[in-house]
């Protein structure tokens, strides 16, 4: 463990940006959080990649030009962009469904629409003079756009109601994880103890063998009227 710590220190002293190292150390921890939420809580989110992408997109959006992390900025910008892109993508399902397009051409049209939408947003940001929004991280936007493809697939297969459920859960989960990892004390703790990333892998191993009921299953099966185990009593012997 000490070796790992000194290795990280070595990288930092040799001009590897702290941000890069933090993100790399966060990756195993974030994925462990998602694993935990799935197997222990039964949190119904879309694929693990989707949630990871969304979380780091938020993290990227929260980055200030000075290099620090502004949680509020992440939540606000992230909230606006994610909700706008998601609603546009889902809204476009109806008209594209009626004209029977191939899947890829449909996705291309949707991605293009999102791109135009970002232009509109940028214009609006410039018009009402919100500088931080006008300089939003385009990498983060790209990540969010990529994620919406899985939203579309879920929508097509599961229908509106279930898809909305999954999508909301996914977005909610990534916001929760983002809020945790964006805390400065959390970042400092991970930087001081980079072995947390290794512990996360150990936790993954344990979670991988976790066989207990998920918290959600306690609610799902709560109406089963189970009888207590009835041990057969030995007959009362009376003459």
């Amino acid at each position, binding site marked *: 463990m000490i070796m790992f710590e000194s290795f990280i220190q070595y990288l930092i002293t040799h001009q590897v940006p702290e941000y890069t190292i933090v993100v790399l150390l966060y990756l195993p921890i974030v994925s462990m959080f998602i694993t935990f939420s799935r197997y222990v809580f039964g949190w119904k989110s879309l694929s693990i990649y989707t949630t990871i992408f969304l979380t780091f997109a938020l993290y990227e959006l929260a980055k200030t030009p000075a290099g620090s992390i502004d949680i509020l900025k992440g939540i606000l910008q992230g909230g606006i962009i994610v909700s706008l892109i998601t609603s546009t993508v889902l809204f476009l399902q109806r008209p594209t469904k009626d004209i029977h397009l191939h899947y890829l051409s449909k996705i291309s049209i949707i991605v293009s629409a999102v791109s135009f939408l970002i232009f509109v947003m940028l214009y609006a940001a410039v018009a009402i003079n919100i500088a931080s929004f006008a300089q939003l991280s385009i990498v983060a936007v790209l990540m969010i756009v990529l994620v919406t493809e899985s939203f579309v*697939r879920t929508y097509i297969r599961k229908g509106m109601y279930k898809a909305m*459920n999954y999508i909301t859960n996914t977005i909610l989960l990534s916001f929760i994880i983002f809020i945790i990892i964006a805390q400065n004390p959390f970042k400092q703790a991970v930087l001081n103890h980079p072995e947390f990333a290794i512990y996360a892998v150990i936790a993954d191993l344990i979670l991988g063998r976790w066989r207990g*009921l*998920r918290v959600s*299953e*306690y609610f799902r099966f709560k109406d*089963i009227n*189970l009888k207590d185990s009835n041990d057969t009593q030995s007959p009362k*012997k*009376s003459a």
Partner: protein
Amino acid sequence: MILNLLKNRHKILGINERNINYVRKYNPRSAREIADNKITTKNVLKEADIPTTKILAVIKNRKDLDAFDFNSVSSSFVIKPVNGTEGSGIELIYNRDKKGNFILPYAHKMSESEMRGHIVNILEGRYSHNYAPDHALIEERVKPHKKFRAYVYRGTPDVRIITFRTIPVMAMVRWPTRESEGKANASKGAVASGIDLATGTTTHSMQEKKNGKIYIVEYVAKTQLRYSGFKIPYWDKILGYSVKASQIAGLGFCAVDFLIDRELGPLVVELNARPGLRIQIANQDGLKWRLEQIKYLHAKSLAHAVRLGKDLFGGEVEEEIEAIAGKKIISLIQPVKFYSKSGKKNTVVKTKVDTGADYSSIDMHLAEELGYKDAIEHLRSFNIPQHLPKEISAEDVREKYYDKLVSHPDIVDAMVIVSSNGRSYRIVIELQCKIDEKIFTLHATIADRSNLQFPALIGKKDLKDFLIDPAKTNLNIWEKY
């Protein structure tokens, strides 16, 4: 409710445990591949002479689709993705109208080009596991068994048996409803009813609404018809096929789904290597404790597997009636455990349950065995004739012997009994007996029944706490004791 579940959580199977301990452990990859592909499933089952729904055509690619003529198949069919999940991508076609449009449930119509579009979606993998390219399957539509008619909205109910190591462990039937648009998938809003394995009778029912909430339902929508108490036709056949199918496919833990055709009887529609856990709600019972009981059992034959499932997990309906009435259900010929006078010994005897007799009666030799020899000797010492001659009246005998007989500590009463053999004066003793888990005191007259089929008989006076089911048969009754 959650507290009760917390206390009994070891009985319920959760997804985590299903995947790690059952699906991966008992379903080898090769077997899973058979189950995941509906065409392979059918080929494998056909070899074992298990009836399946009939495949009319398989469309593998765009070329097949372009060459396919819908007029070449009957006008009523089902389109399915070969690797579909949770019933998505399935379309039921009832007929074609004059313009050639396909008629779907709800009188929705689909033109031929729309139908081709749907098949293209299937081929592109919209409904398959992991969105991989898929094939489309055109199957004959099963005409539902007449008994189901009042219970379903369009569609055909689907009977599911979960087998573990070939032994049936739980069963349910899914009724298509208006919400499920005629589909028998519980995730789409179909009603699911648990089935008592022993009798094939439905028990509890539940429905999952679109918002994911689960409701316990009792009646078929807009009717006074109960979902419970329905007897599934061909029940034994269904259990037999499920055992055989899981064995042939090599699936240790799977669900076998059946449709019941009006003419052809039960047909296997698919095997499922990752059965859902909703069945536990429909049956109001956990799967886990059932699976754990079977872990160390070995079914010696197909018939043995069916019998094990029925004996171990059946009888829910009966239990329920017993719970409501507070009375035990017994059969006409019921095994009864008799305790000896000292309570140290006991013996199980096939007993005739006779509502035509007032009093219970046991054989003299059996009574002697149970320690009442002394009482019998006491009776014999008076030399009362076995059959009372006509000239002696009952009052006379009673006056003469009653007090003397009853003075013996084991004898509680004495009476004249009129039977087909004539009149006889008998003594009555008190015995401790047990039927299933119920212990009670029997007042029995002692008679020589050595020439009769059953050494004991229970009459009306001792039957107050029981309900009699003439159809009940006690399987393996002797092993139970």
